[in-house]
């Protein structure tokens, strides 16, 4: 009577997976004053939003998302990166009629190949999930960032207008409405 023998193969893998995402946009800063002065005014506004200055750039980190603004060009770069340590272990069983010998080895080989394929699929699935998480994080930061930066640009522009007006002549009257964002400056030339 022939017997069937169970063959069990176990594979484990350790991988480090990385997901990243980035997007770039441009601030609209009016050139009312020389570039360096506008950059300084913008830097002051961005500092109030939690940005830190590093040379000619303003940087803010929100969790895994980094926002970098180049003060000279107004270029805004958002990037998100996350690494994850992945440990995967899979076990698979098959049957063979030959406990020792070629048939058992063949069955083991086939099972190992199937396990390797399953592990690769598992890694790919985890990669996709991690990518989705990073994308979602970047999206949520992006949603609020546009209006934040618009307000900062508007305040920097208002400050630049005041300086420009003072350069042109004597300021007689200045009216500012924070709710609507309007600014009226009367200058005597």
């Amino acid at each position, binding site marked *: 009577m022939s017997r069937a023998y169970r063959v069990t193969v176990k594979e484990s893998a350790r991988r480090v997976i990385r997901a990243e*995402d980035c997007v770039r946009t*441009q601030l609209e800063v009016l050139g009312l004053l020389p570039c360096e002065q506008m950059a300084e005014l913008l830097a002051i506004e961005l500092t109030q939003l939690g940005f830190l200055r590093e040379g000619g750039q303003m940087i803010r980190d929100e969790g895994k998302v980094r926002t970098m603004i180049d003060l000279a060009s107004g270029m805004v770069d958002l990037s998100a990166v996350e690494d994850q340590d992945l440990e995967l272990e899979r076990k698979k069983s098959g049957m063979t009629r030959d406990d020792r010998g070629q048939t058992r080895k063949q069955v083991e080989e086939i099972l190992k190949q199937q396990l390797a394929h399953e592990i690769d699929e598992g890694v790919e699935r985890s990669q996709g999930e991690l990518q989705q998480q*990073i994308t979602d994080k*970047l*999206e949520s930061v*992006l*949603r609020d960032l546009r209006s934040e930066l618009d307000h900062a640009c508007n305040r920097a522009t208002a400050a630049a207008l005041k300086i420009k007006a003072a350069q042109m002549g004597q300021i007689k009257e200045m009216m500012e409405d924070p709710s609507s964002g309007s600014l009226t400056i009367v200058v005597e030339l």
Partner: protein
Amino acid sequence: MRVVSQFENDLLRILQGVVSRAPIDQFRSQLVRKQLRPKCLGRDAVELIEQSLAAGLVMRMTRSGAWQSGRHLRAGRLVQGNLWQRTPPHELGLSFSAASIDLLVDLTVTQNCDSMPSRVANSNQAAIDCTLGDRVLQYCIAHATAELPLLSEWYRQEPLISNELIALAMPDRYAAAEAFAVLDFEAWMTGTKAIMLEALQPEFGESMLRLGHLKSQLADPGQVEQLGIHEDRVFNAYLTAARKQRRPDLCQFILVAGNQLLSNTTSVRQWFPCLDVSKLNVSQRAATYRSGASLPRAICQIGDWHRESRSIGYFDEGYVESQWLKSCWEQVGGNQLRQQAERVLKELDVQA
């Protein structure tokens, strides 16, 4: 009485359909019917082809937009009226070469997306030998058969791949092409070629509206990007040539079509209602949206010309062109149009 063979009759029916802008159904059966290439065409058939080309293309261009009264720039002067009022007759002539006859024969013989005949395919000579009349006929054929996949392979080969009129009106035809031909729009900004562009302005505007509708139906981000690449390539080359040759009047169709497309846009989502970007990350989405915004970018470019034109004085070079641009800009509500275009670009720039 003239006597023609069945093949020649089909060829003439197709030609009539093409030049009269008839609905494709009127000559579809002739296009898809299996035909054997004849050794040559009869004298009667050739004479009828000549008559159809001579009279038919004139009617075709007239119906396309030549009848409309407009203001255009010619050698730094402003001319007004319809096409034959602002152009002396000797400048309106179109000549045709054997390339037109060959194209018509190939069109009659070809069935269901066949490749072009080998003697024509991959032949740069085919493009070099084409006259203006040949080019216009190629464009008319492409326009007439737009609904059929019949010539889809032909657009990847000469002479159609380098036909600037087709590239301008139908950049989507080249979306699947593996190689780009060099488009020389500068040559189209002067002489009789420019006059053809003037006549086709309304048709180009319709094409832009068609492209806008097409883009709104696309769900695949890859297709949007492909189309955007070709649109950008064509618009950039065209606008650069128009700027260099001081023919802003030949870009009027961009403003007119832009007005129609952007004036109804209350939300950026209306541009790509069917687009599925759920599987893309943010940077890929941004790239996709940007590639679909060729028209707003072109409008902003013309807006920059308008801004510069405001500082051109009476004794400065380009005064007449600047005056034309200022008047056209006002007519189409250019300032509001530009605001719309900038708003779309700003929203698409970081659209998640």
